[in-house]
């Protein structure tokens, strides 16, 4: 659906040293790119800078060639960018159903919204059992599922995911990764997926990009990174 281009992006917090420094990256239309690297490498900060929740110090973020860099977060979302932050994104006072409908509010009208919500109940079965339960009664893992489902309901053009597998049961992780891969293939959804679950992420990705100290140190086809122990060891430490 859309190509995300990052040009010489520099970002960080306050007056501190840059966390991401002069980074170039392209995530083509319909591609799934795994963003890998140790804790502290800058993965979360990069995703935040792409959505505008951390200010950009230099460089540009482009969606299909259009410059997003100066735009507020909500305008970036309207244009089709969605971020699922690590472990957050649920309004605990609202029910599961209300949270899902909220996720699709800006991008759908009825009956498409109802259909998009129903699709999420198929994907995340535990949520279907809890559709009238308020967010604060969900378990930690169920809340993470709901945050992911809320982002998917908006049917974004580019989906940024920060450790979606964290706290999820293996069966749910496998199903989620399968859905991401299938949705990308079927609808052209573009996915940038930051993960510590390297094996899982590479199993659905076209490319693996390894970040270290805020810079890209490897950008390889996912199959190569997954299959070559020497590469994995050099860039990922195992």
């Amino acid at each position, binding site marked *: 659906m859309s190509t995300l281009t990052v040009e010489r992006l520099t970002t960080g917090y306050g007056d501190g040293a840059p966390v991401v420094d002069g980074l170039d990256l392209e995530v083509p239309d319909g591609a799934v790119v795994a963003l890998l690297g*140790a*804790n*502290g490498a800058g993965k979360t900060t990069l995703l935040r800078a792409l959505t505008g929740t951390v200010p950009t110090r230099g460089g540009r973020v482009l969606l299909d060639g259009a410059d997003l860099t100066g735009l507020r977060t909500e305008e970036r979302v309207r244009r089709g960018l969605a971020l699922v932050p690590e472990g957050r994104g649920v309004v605990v006072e609202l029910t599961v159903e209300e949270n899902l409908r909220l996720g699709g509010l800006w991008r759908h009208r009825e009956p498409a919204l109802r259909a998009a919500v129903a699709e999420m109940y198929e994907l995340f079965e535990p949520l279907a059992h809890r559709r009238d339960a308020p967010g604060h009664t969900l378990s930690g893992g169920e809340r993470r599922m709901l945050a992911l489902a809320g982002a998917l309901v908006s049917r974004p053009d580019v989906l940024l995911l920060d450790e979606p597998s964290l706290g999820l*049961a*293996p*069966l749910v992780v496998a199903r989620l990764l399968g859905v991401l891969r299938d949705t990308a293939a079927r609808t052209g959804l573009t996915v940038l997926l930051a993960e510590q679950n390297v*094996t899982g992420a590479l*199993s659905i990705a076209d490319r693996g990009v390894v970040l270290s100290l805020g810079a890209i140190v490897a950008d390889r086809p996912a199959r190569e990174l997954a299959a070559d122990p020497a590469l994995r060891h050099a860039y990922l430490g195992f």
Partner: protein
Amino acid sequence: MTTTSPPPPRLRIDGLGVAFGGLTVLDGVSFTVGDGETVALIGPNGAGKTTVFNAVCGLVRPRAGSVRIGGAPAPASATRMLAAGVSRTLQGLGLFERMTVLENVLVPLSGERGGAAAADRARAVLDRLGLARAADRPAGALPYPERKRVALARALVTEPALLLLDEPAGGLGDADIAALAAVIGEIASSGCSVLLVEHHVDFVMDVADRVVVLDFGRVIACGTPGEVRGDAAVEAAYLGLGAAS
């Protein structure tokens, strides 16, 4: 003639039932954790794993069954948890981000806070977990793996007999997970019993002596890691076919 009965297990849960309003969260859950044993509690999201922890800590009141720690009833409220020899970590870490690492670790020793003995004990735990150099930094300034270790240090500083770890490997890379497995091995060999909730299956299989599997609030399997991994019901409810960690 007197007979000596075997000592009670560190944790015995018998027929535990918990409900939130009309929702049954736990139903007839029974298992034990022996001295120095590491038991993993696994299962689908929403199966009731964290609620078991909360029942052991006195945070939720069971509507049926019992929880006994070293033969004594579990604390009736969370404020009595430490006195019962129980410590836990939280999924969300729950660190005081603006306080230093050392201050965070001193929190559960509040009665002794400021005392040299408490500070020495806290520093010894930090040293053991490779955090000595971070002692005076704000906890919020540390990278995630180190913040997780601070949470573990805070749980260990009270020298618990029973340690509850909620997703200790979540969000960690492989090198940190290997280091964590070694630390848990040391904790268990010192005689402390460990009950952990975790979704990283390879890690669970590596560290656990036994695995208890919950689904919809009931125990569906219990056994050694090998037995549980080969269990058809566990595969269907939790692991999935060919599931990786």
